[in-house]
């Protein structure tokens, strides 16, 4: 199949459209998801939206520049210049606190106390793989329902897999509603045990031997207390999942032009399609477009041979500049190949690129600059 030129992701159209209510940034670790989310939130705010950005684990200096001193689960205003027509808030997710709130909301005070004190809950709320993702989605649902913001930008957690936040609510549900947990928590002699028949003693004694009796007791106490809030959990998880599929949501897949990150992006785009989640496009950070003009027409081989000639003539600066250019052209060619392969594999997904900057971004002017590149960047050659 011949590759077709990728179409540009129109970031301003996306953030200006009042129907866009949620933007979810997702992608592999280390590709600049948080920065992209913050830059999109800032651009939207300065163009008139009332925006809140949920981040999970921002770099310290970025957090500071957003006015986030601590992880406190509360949206904090980000000071914008006077000419900004909208507003921006940012918050860092505290997954345990969010989880505690959900429990309190769904259980009577006594039961909530029991749940919150159970060692299983302690583990579940702090280190269950997927809790962070689940709570990010829960927080998204809460903010959406509050109606205080007209655009919510979510930075997804750095997961084992970039897809965890889609799967976490279901997995948590499957776990809490699973056969095993019912089996372990059921009093002896009930139906669950009979169903298992002769294998039961073996299994029960195995579990006991491996994890110890205390573990089973804690688990039983946890499950029976959690039973009452569980229905509410499932329902909320499903509601958030449906919210993600709704037309007001836009997924932005973030990548860098490297094989692994692009492969993950490709995988993610497929998965979003499978789950009927609306994809706005792909942001490729840290690209190396060539400068306009004659430099764009000077290919790597020509630049290298000119550099060799100049090195012999003892002209070191121009030779170094040409070598640098030759490297850059090769890098750019590889980036173009990676991008076009992904675009042609995914029916012309829209792309915006942000050129690599010499220094890291950790303040509002830096984020604004990224927002501008996202909006205006010519795709480059």
């Amino acid at each position: 199949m011949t590759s077709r030129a990728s179409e540009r992701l129109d970031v301003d159209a996306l953030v200006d459209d009042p129907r866009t209510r949620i933007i979810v940034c997702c992608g592999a670790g280390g590709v600049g998801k948080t920065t992209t989310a913050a830059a999109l939130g800032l651009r939207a705010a300065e163009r008139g939206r009332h925006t809140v950005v949920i981040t999970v684990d921002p770099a310290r200096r970025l957090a500071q520049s957003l006015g986030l001193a601590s992880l406190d689960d509360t949206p904090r205003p980000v000071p914008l210049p006077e000419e900004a027509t909208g507003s921006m808030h940012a918050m860092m997710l505290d997954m345990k606190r969010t989880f505690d709130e959900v429990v309190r909301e769904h259980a009577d005070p006594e039961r909530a106390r029991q749940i919150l004190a159970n060692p299983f809950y302690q583990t579940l709320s702090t280190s269950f793989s997927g809790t962070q993702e689940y709570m990010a989605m829960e927080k998204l649902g809460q903010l959406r329902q509050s109606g205080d913001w007209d655009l919510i930008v979510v930075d997804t957690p750095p997961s084992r897999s970039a897809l965890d936040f889609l799967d976490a609510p279901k997995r948590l549900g499957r776990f809490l509603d699973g056969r095993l947990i019912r089996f372990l928590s059921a009093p002896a002699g009930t139906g669950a045990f009979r169903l298992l028949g002769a294998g039961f003693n073996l299994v029960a004694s195995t579990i006991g031997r491996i994890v110890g009796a205390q573990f089973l007791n804690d688990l039983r106490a946890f499950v029976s207390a959690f039973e009452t809030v569980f229905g509410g959990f499932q329902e909320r998880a499903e509601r958030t999942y449906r919210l993600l599929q709704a037309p007001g949501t836009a997924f932005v897949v973030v990548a860098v032009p490297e094989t692994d990150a692009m492969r993950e992006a490709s995988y993610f785009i497929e998965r979003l399609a499978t789950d009927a989640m609306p994809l706005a496009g792909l942001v490729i950070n840290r690209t190396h477009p060539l400068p306009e003009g004659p430099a764009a027409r000077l290919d790597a081989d020509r630049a290298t041979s000119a550099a060799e000639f100049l090195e012999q003539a003892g002209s070191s600066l121009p030779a170094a500049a040409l070598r640098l250019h030759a490297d850059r052209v090769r890098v750019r060619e590889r980036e173009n190949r990676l991008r076009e392969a992904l675009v042609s594999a995914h029916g012309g997904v829209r792309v915006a690129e942000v050129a690599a900057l010499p220094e890291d971004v950790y303040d509002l002017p830096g984020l604004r600059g990224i927002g501008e590149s996202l909006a205006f960047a010519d795709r480059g050659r």
Partner: protein
Amino acid sequence: MSEGEHRPQPPGGASTKARLHIVTGKGGTGKTTVAAALAQALASGGGRVLLVEVEGRQGLATLLGVPPLPYEEREMISAPGGGTVCVLAADAESALLEYLEMFYGMRRAGQALNRLGAVDFATTIAPGLRDVLLTGKATEAVRRRRGARRRASDAPSTEPFHYDAVVMDAPPTGRIAQFLNVNSEVAGLARAGPIRNHADRVMEVIRSGGTRVHFVSVLEEMPAQETRDGIAEISALGIRVGVVLVNMVRPPLLDEPGLVAAADGGPDLHALSAGLKEAGLDDPEELAAALAGEVRAHALRVRLERRVRIGLEDLGRPLLELPLLEGGVDRAALDLLARRLIDQGVRR
């Protein structure tokens, strides 16, 4: 073996004598590639090394250009000067079933548990259990001796070790301390019993003088910051830090005065266009202006990289360097990286 970890170490010295090498790094720094190159370097000259991945990403299969790997130690890479690297893609489910069979002879019970969803349960509810199974697999391989059928304690301790070293492609820096601190992770859930004992045994190996955690970084601020934070966390747990591997290093293309001039005001445009003209290139002036931008960006980047490198040097760990490989990593490139590590003093 007594460890003089307070004495300054020779370059690469942190790798000597250690048998479990845990490689971590921020996402995007090339941790998997570096782990594979390290395994290959440690195996060189007739050694036998196990390379384990624990995150279920099949990163090693991708790196080696082979189909997804099963839960099985397979000879897959040959090292310079003879030597073998076996590769294992460890997953918690298989590790649990193997653990049950190995220590309790409970194959049937294990399968029953699997059907019930117990394995999913154990490895999902409590990442601590997942982590202890995965680190447990690596530590078992460290302790395994030749002639043993399965369990580490089967063979007399006079037999040589089955593997000269085990290299783990570990979770990223942000999660490494939690991942390795299996003891406290499991403590909240299992206060007694075999899992707890198993965790204690695993922790003993991880805290021993034979284990090193190596950090992969690139010359950028955020990965360097994570390296700094990670080293502090790992040291606080009483686990030994090995080396810092600076990956994807690019040589500067300008001499020192050239770099300073280019970073400050931009390079000498006149010299640039004169040279381009001499080389017979079209539009030398306009081309010089465009290339000047590229040169300045390069100089600024080199300046930032130097600042980051000084920060990494201040950590007081040996710094090993690996070059940026244009065009991605294949087996030949892996070979080259392994040789670079050997040149810098990495050996068994």
